[in-house]
């Protein structure tokens, strides 16, 4: 069973749809027991960091998430919330990844929206993924490159496209919206 963390972030259904298309059963839940029992957990997110963190804290989901032992995949805002700190609403985050999240400097269009490729891929998440593959991004804040970065991408500057530490995985892009390439990456995670 795959558990998708329920919180006040947009479009969680698209993550569930993608998991269903890959043939996995899933539940959307904010229940601590259900999250702990799941084989894999997905921590999605589109929205604003400050209110998302406040929501997680209110329900003690912040503690639950950082104590999970099975593979967990943060997506987009999910990646940013797993970092140390974000400039968005000056928010202290979950601190799994030793990186800060910053606003792109306004020298090109913001958000970084659309299809982009990545380099420096490491690990099983990127099995069968090539340098020419594109995935879909939409974000105005980016995670700095750190020791946990397992893929980098470039828009205005190089940033973390994906991160990993122990059982915590995260992608800045949306695998659930990234056509066949995204499906492969999601499947790689679900097969871990």
């Amino acid at each position: 069973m795959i558990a998708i963390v329920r919180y006040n972030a947009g479009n969680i259904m698209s993550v569930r749809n993608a998991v269903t298309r890959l043939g996995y059963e899933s539940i959307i839940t904010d229940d601590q027991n259900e999250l702990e029992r799941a084989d894999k957990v997905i921590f999605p997110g589109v929205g604003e960091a400050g209110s998302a963190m406040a929501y997680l804290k209110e329900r003690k989901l912040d503690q639950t998430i950082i104590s999970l032992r099975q593979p967990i995949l943060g997506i987009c805002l999910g990646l940013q919330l797993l970092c140390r700190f974000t400039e968005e609403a000056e928010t202290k985050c979950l601190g799994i990844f030793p990186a800060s999240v910053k606003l792109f400097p306004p020298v090109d269009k913001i958000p970084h929206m659309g299809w982009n490729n990545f380099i420096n891929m490491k690990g099983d998440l990127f099995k069968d993924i090539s340098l020419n593959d594109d995935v879909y991004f939409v974000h105005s804040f980016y995670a700095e490159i750190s020791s946990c970065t397992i893929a980098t991408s470039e828009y205005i500057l190089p940033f973390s496209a994906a991160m990993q530490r122990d059982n915590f995985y995260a992608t800045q892009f949306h695998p659930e919206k990234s056509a066949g390439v995204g499906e492969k990456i999601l499947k790689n995670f679900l097969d871990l």
Partner: protein
Amino acid sequence: MLKKRIIPCLDIKDGRTVKGVNFLNLIDAGNPVELAKEYVKQGADELVFLDITATIENRKALAGLVERIAAEINIPFTVGGGIDTVEDVAVLIKAGADKVTVNSSAVKRPELISDIAAQFGSQCVVVAIDTKLNDDGWKVFVNGGRVPTPLKTMQWAKKVEELGAGEILLTSMNSDGTKEGFSLDITTEVSRNVNIPVIASGGAGSMEHFRDVFFHTGCSAALAASIFHFGEIDIRDLKKYLKNENIAVRL
């Protein structure tokens, strides 16, 4: 490198795709889900669904359609047509839409843009601007391009950016339906003067038109309807052509 996006637009009436479509391999080309899947297969980067009937009864049906699209489609899609309130948006986002587009209702009540952005994030608000060149410059038109407003296009574009729009879908009424190419001048002016992505729309008739709009205007994406629907241009061929012309696209 960030790629330029190609976006087919599907007009929806009573839950069906309108405008003749001649994909021979589709059993039911009037079925928006089937047509959308075909575009995904061809390599469309995003899809836009516009409900051109947009009555209250149809809106409920639209949410059902959005659910079916979301279940099958693995690229981002935008839904629009008759969105007047944040509640309308909530229904569509919950059904699985990634973005919504607002047009006349935003001109009437600009705070709609900031309200949607506050609740769902800027990334999901696409403000559609229909523009037409007349004697005193490019002006904003509403109600499907039929009703003029005193708004200057450039001023309105800056305003929607300030209010929290995540993208602008700019349709030139002068070019729309002509198949003579996008309006490069106004697309350039808007794209160079706002710091959010601009989707060019109206006038696509050939692959060269896409090259020109990407090469000259600074737009992030180009949208078209009939040339894709009628199979005049296959998106795969278009993207190969653009790549050969040194435009960054996703293949």
